[in-house]
Every structure is written in structure tokens, then in C-alpha cells.
């Protein structure tokens, strides 16, 4: 039974799924490319798959799941015991992974994604960048990163001494912040965040995903 990922390899939320699949050593999947530029994600057929008109969507046999953070949890449970133990080993490990996944989702992603939208996506679509949004969101992201800096001084990765889904969830948007949005100083000015970023972004799984994005 093949897994089908409806999405685009250059798209951040799709990358969350692809990085997870590679970390879990899952090879039996295919990518069904959804052409956002042609508005395929708003077509009636696509809306039957995903009523909010967003990518990615996972199909696994009869079931269809959307929301990338739900999909990656499902994949970790489905493929438990193979590849990287992305949810840790104990119930407490998993709780801390959940906690930091929520932190990424509530405290990191809102500011990071708004900055990336203005600095990276808008220019790519030929739209003007709203610098006032960047100016408003940057201090929020700085505040969050200050907490990360203090935490990562005591902890190798977010949920403990193991690489987890919580770290992985930060990869796609942080990659764009650092390498496309001109905001690498947010990371490089914080030594522990910087060391953490180097460790997680250099993992072969994410490097493979970036190569897929270039094709």
C-alpha cells in the first residue's frame, strides 16, 4: 500500500512530511505534485480532499489526513520502531516532544511564517513585501529565540538529549529565514541556538529534502 503525499517539495509544510519520511527510513511513498501557482489547491476536486484548500495531504489506503503536524505524528506511530525515534522512548519523552511541538506551533511558527511570507514568498510571486509586518514580528521571534537560547544551553535538543519531531518541525521555516529571508542573524547571534540549528539542519534527511526541493 503506497503512501501518497499531495504537496510540493519546495513548500514548507510538505517538507515537514518529507523530512519525517526520510528520518523514519520510509521509501514506499510517492509525491503527487499540487501546483499552487495554478491554484490547484482551490479546485473543487482538491477541496474534497482538504476542505481548507491547503497542502499537504496524506493518503494512506482508504484514509486521508491533512494538517502537517497531525500527519507527521501519524507517521511516527505507524512506523514506530524503525528509523529515528522521533517521539523519544518513554511516555515522558513523548510529552516533552508534544510540549515543544506546541511551542513551535504557537510561539515560533506564527512570527517565523509571517516574516518568511513577506521576505520570501511575496517577492517570488511578484508581490510587494510589507516591511511593517517584518518589523512587528521580528521582536516576537527574538523573544521566543531568547527562551530557546537559555533552554538549549541546558539541553542538546528541544525535548532532551535526542533529536525529535519537535526539532524537525522547525526545519522548513527556519531554513528559509536563514537562507532566503536575510534573517540569519536571528540564529547566528545566539550561540546555543546556532549550534542546535547546525546540528539539525545538517542531518542527511533534511539535506535530502532540500535536494528534492531543488528539482
Amino acid at each position, binding site marked *: 500500500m503506497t503512501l501518497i503525499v499531495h504537496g510540493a517539495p519546495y513548500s514548507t509544510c510538505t517538507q515537514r512530511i518529507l523530512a519525517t519520511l526520510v528520518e523514519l527510513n520510509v521509501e514506499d511513498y510517492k509525491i503527487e505534485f499540487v501546483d499552487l501557482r495554478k491554484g490547484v489547491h482551490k479546485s473543487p476536486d482538491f477541496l474534497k480532499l482538504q*476542505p*481548507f484548500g491547503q497542502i499537504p495531504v496524506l493518503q*494512506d489506503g*482508504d*484514509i486521508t*489526513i*491533512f*494538517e*502537517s*503536524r*497531525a*500527519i507527521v*505524528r*501519524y507517521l511516527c*506511530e*505507524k512506523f514506530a520502531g524503525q528509523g529515528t525515534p522521533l517521539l523519544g522512548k518513554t*511516555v*515522558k519523552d*513523548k*510529552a*516533552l516532544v*508534544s*510540549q515543544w*511541538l*506546541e*511551542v513551535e*506551533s*504557537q*510561539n515560533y511558527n*506564527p512570527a517565523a511564517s509571517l516574516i518568511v511570507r513577506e521576505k520570501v514568498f511575496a517577492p517570488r510571486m511578484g508581490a510587494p513585501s510589507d516591511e511593517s509586518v517584518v518589523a512587528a514580528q521580528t521582536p516576537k521571534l527574538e523573544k*521566543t529565540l531568547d*527562551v530557546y537560547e*537559555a*533552554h538549549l544551553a541546558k539541553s542538546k535538543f528541544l525535548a532532551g538529549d535526542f533529536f525529535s519531531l519537535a526539532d524537525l518541525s522547525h526545519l522548513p521555516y527556519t531554513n528559509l529565514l536563514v537562507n532566503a529571508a536575510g534573517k540569519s542573524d536571528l540564529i547566528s547571534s545566539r550561540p546555543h541556538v546556532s549550534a542546535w540549528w547546525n546540528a539539525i539542519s545538517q542531518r542527511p534527511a533534511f539535506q535530502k529534502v532540500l535536494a528534492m526541493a531543488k528539482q
Partner: protein
Amino acid sequence: MIRILEPYIPLCPEHPEQVYLVCPPALRTWAEQVEDFELVKVDLAAGEQLKPEFLAINPFAEIPVLEWGDFHLYESRAIARYIAEKFKEQGPENFLGKTLEERAVVYQWIESESHQFNDSAFSPWVMEYYLAYYEEKRPVREEVIAPLRARLEKFFDRVEARLSKSKFLAGEYYTMADMNIAPSLWHIMNFEPELITSRKHVKAWYEILTSRPTFKKMLEADAGWPLL
């Protein structure tokens, strides 16, 4: 003994940090599974969450926090998941789904509540109402509320379509996906009930969720909650 650190809100107008109360208090509804817990009030008006002792357990200075011996956990949805797993023999049947596939659908709706409902619509919407009614004692700003209301309408249209095919969000059973949104629905009924009452399936679902004994227990714990 499990302790939950949650907000004590005396609703003092000088302290705008009271908007923390909009964090979905799914926590008290997880009384579905755990009876033996203690609620510890954190005095937000006095800035208790900004003190070093609190920051040591949650550096993001947010409530709620679960404390169990030395173990601390924050983020309400992470706490709910941990409790569901730790106490899975107790509480509602199939609370997170029976099979792996059902779990996936529960997770999906948990994320939809978090991103399509809470972050992008409900949270700023309810914050505007509380600021207007309790903090600044002024009318609600329609230019702030109107786009948020439009997003809520869109979200509820999708939920209406979903609930025309299944009794609860993730299928035929009450799950954490329903639990997580229930307290927010109650706030919506407080301020703009027609968002719920104008949709047949959403209204029926709302009535089921809020008549659960654990939901009523939560409201009692909040006695003195300012209703309009």
C-alpha cells in the same frame, strides 16, 4: 498528586496580561480521566507568571502548567495528550481513537482547531471582546471583529459539513478533538451565539459537548466567571 497551575483572574482593569485567560482551558475538561488533582491559581494580575520561580518551570510565562512531583509540562494541548496517554484506561472510550487510522483523524482535527480556528480566528476575536468589555470598557471595534468573524464563519461552515456526516469531529465517538474546542464554543455562545445556533449540526454538537458532566464541573469551578 497532580497539580495544575492555572490563572486566577480577579479582572483588574489595570493589568492587560489577563488576556491569558483566552488560552483554551481544555485542561479542566480532562477531568474526564483524572479525579485526583489540585488546581493552583497563578495570580496573573500580580504578575506571578513573570517571577523567577514560575519562569523556571515555564520560561514562556504562560499558563496552564502541569506539575507532578518534579515533572513539569506546559502547553495545554501537550498536557491533554500526556494525560490521555498516561490515564488511558480511565475516561471516555476511544478518547484518542481506537485504531491508528482513527487516531490520525483525531490528530487532524486537533490541528485544525489549533490553526484554522484558535490561532487565526477565535483567539484574537475573543481577546477583542474581553478587552472591550472588561479592560477598556468600550464598544467592540467592528473593523477588528469583522474579518475574524468571517474566518469563524468559514471554519464553522466546514464543521457543519463534517458534522452532517459524523456525530463528532473525528467520527462517531467523542474525542479530544471535540474536548479541545468545547470551552471556546462556550465563549462564542456568550458573545455571538448565532455563529453556533444558525448551524443545525454545530448547534446539536455544542449541546452534547456542554452537557457532559465534566464540562458542567468545569463551569462550576469557574463560578464567578463574568457572563454578560
